């Protein structure tokens, strides 16, 4: 059949099939957003009966879920952890690539291999240590755990990134009397902006979306991050599902905005090390 068609027409049909399959995939990938939106626009009784439309779950959202407090907690935990990850990871990455000391390669490999350790594997001792230090009362415990978990990757990314920096640049800075802190702050940090962006975006999404650390290392229910708040409410099985979906949308928006705005940094971070 196809052999009888002129090649131009055949190609056109091929294009339409291609476009059609891409639309199908798009529908599947947009499904979560669609279900969140339509479910949030129903009252609980409308949700159970199937039909209808209501703003109720949105107008009563703050009384069902302490959404403002939770977003604030997420923001505090996220930004503090990322700040530590950057302040610790950037100098270390610089040191391991340009200021090598005795055994630095071994130390570097040990730190990088810590990337492979999932938190669950060390969950019990970690929890007991952080609790004994009295850090589960506020945000500090969670912030430090997130910072420690994010550091190996950021050290790896920064050191790979700085490998391309010419030694002459650093030497020139030292000769000019900047000192190593001056060189780092004035010469290295400005070069590192794309790497800083990559670490920030990846860690933001990771920490904003995480459940386990926030669930266990923040004991005060009034200091819960939004992802934890949603998960705990859902596990309780008593909260209205439309309200949960409205809360989910609120939690998803910041991560989506960051994601769409900085897509290329994310891709860069993910494929780090293999697409040189």
């Amino acid at each position, binding site marked *: 059949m196809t052999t009888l068609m002129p090649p131009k027409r055949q190609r056109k049909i091929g294009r339409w099939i*291609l*476009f059609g399959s*891409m639309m199908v*995939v*798009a529908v599947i*990938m947009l*499904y*979560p957003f669609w*279900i*969140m939106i339509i479910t949030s626009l129903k009252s609980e009784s409308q949700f*159970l009966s*199937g039909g209808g439309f209501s703003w109720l779950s949105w107008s009563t959202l703050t009384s069902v879920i302490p959404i403002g407090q939770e977003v604030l907690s997420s923001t505090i935990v996220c930004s503090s952890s990322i700040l530590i990850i950057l*302040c610790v990871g950037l*100098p270390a990455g*610089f*040191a391991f690539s340009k*200021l*090598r*000391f*005795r055994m*630095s390669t071994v130390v570097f490999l*040990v730190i990088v291999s810590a990337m*492979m*350790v*999932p938190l*669950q*594997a*060390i*969950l*019990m*001792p970690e929890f*007991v*240590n952080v*609790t004994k230090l009295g850090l589960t009362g506020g945000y500090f415990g969670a912030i430090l755990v997130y910072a*420690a978990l994010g*550091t*190996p990757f950021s050290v790896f990314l920064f050191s790979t990134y700085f490998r391309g920096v010419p030694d002459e640049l650093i030497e020139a800075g030292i000769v000019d009397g900047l000192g*190593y802190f001056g060189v780092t702050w004035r010469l290295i940090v400005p070069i590192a902006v794309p790497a800083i962006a990559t670490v920030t975006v990846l860690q933001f999404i990771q920490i*904003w*979306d995480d*459940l*386990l650390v926030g669930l266990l290392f923040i004991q005060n229910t009034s200091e819960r991050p939004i*992802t934890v708040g949603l*998960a705990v409410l*859902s596990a309780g099985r008593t909260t209205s599902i439309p309200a*949960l*979906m409205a809360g*989910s949308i609120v*939690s*998803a928006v910041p*991560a*989506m905005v*960051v*994601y*769409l705005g900085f*897509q290329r940094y994310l*891709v860069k971070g*993910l494929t780090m090390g*293999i*697409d040189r």
Partner: protein
Amino acid sequence: MTLKRRRQLAGVVFALPAIALVVGFIGIPIGQAIYYSFTQWNGLTSTWIGTSTWTQAFHNTNLWTALRNNGLLLLSVPFALAIPLCIAVLLHQRVAGWRIFRSIYFLPTAISWVVLGLVAERFFAYQGTLNSIIHALGFSHVSTNMLGYESEALIALGITFVFTMIGTNTMLFLTGLATLDPSLEEAARIDGAGRWRIFRSITLPHLRRFIQLAFVMTVIALFSALFSLIFVMTGGGPGYATTTMEFLIYETGFNQGDFGTAALYGLILFVITGIVGVVQLRLIGSNE
């Protein structure tokens, strides 16, 4: 002090905070986990009981159930690779509007697996989308409730897992395809090779490293990132039907208060991910 000495000193000072953080929060707990796995431990007091925690653990059916569940979930990995590969190839044809499609496909990657789990729960629920689809197809007498049955809940979890991995893996493969030299495909086409032949002989070998990376990342996610999905979708149940290793650790430690056994389970998980990591290093090594 010589310039070299000063540079080395600066290096040590710069690296120290990162070393301290990683040793304090990752290194030391690994050592503690080994110690506590030989003790009876409730978080406050621990008594050394030697290897009996280990023998008890290996006689515990929950451990084997969790390992079996992880093993069964590994069956979803081929799907978590093949589907994104197809999507990446579709996107790579660059039909009109492909950039918009790319953004749409990656969008679910930004949202929490907690939220995706909530949505998946709605999808599989008795009054959920899956049953609506089945009824719309004309099977009005058929109704599923996959999350409610021991035999089906794990399948639902696996399907959700595949969905959550699509964005990341597609992104990886698309990056790989972008590094492919188009003139190679052109040359093959001129030589009379068909689409499938070009895909098999040129595209697929080129993507080898990317597929390996995606494989390792998917397997690691399978062992260490399902917690959120399980927590909101099933709570590990019905029974222990969807309890994986990582969830068993949480369950044993925080619901049963048996910290020693949970620490031991953590070590088992550590060994498993360690093996995957070593395999990854060997794969990377064999490529260079």
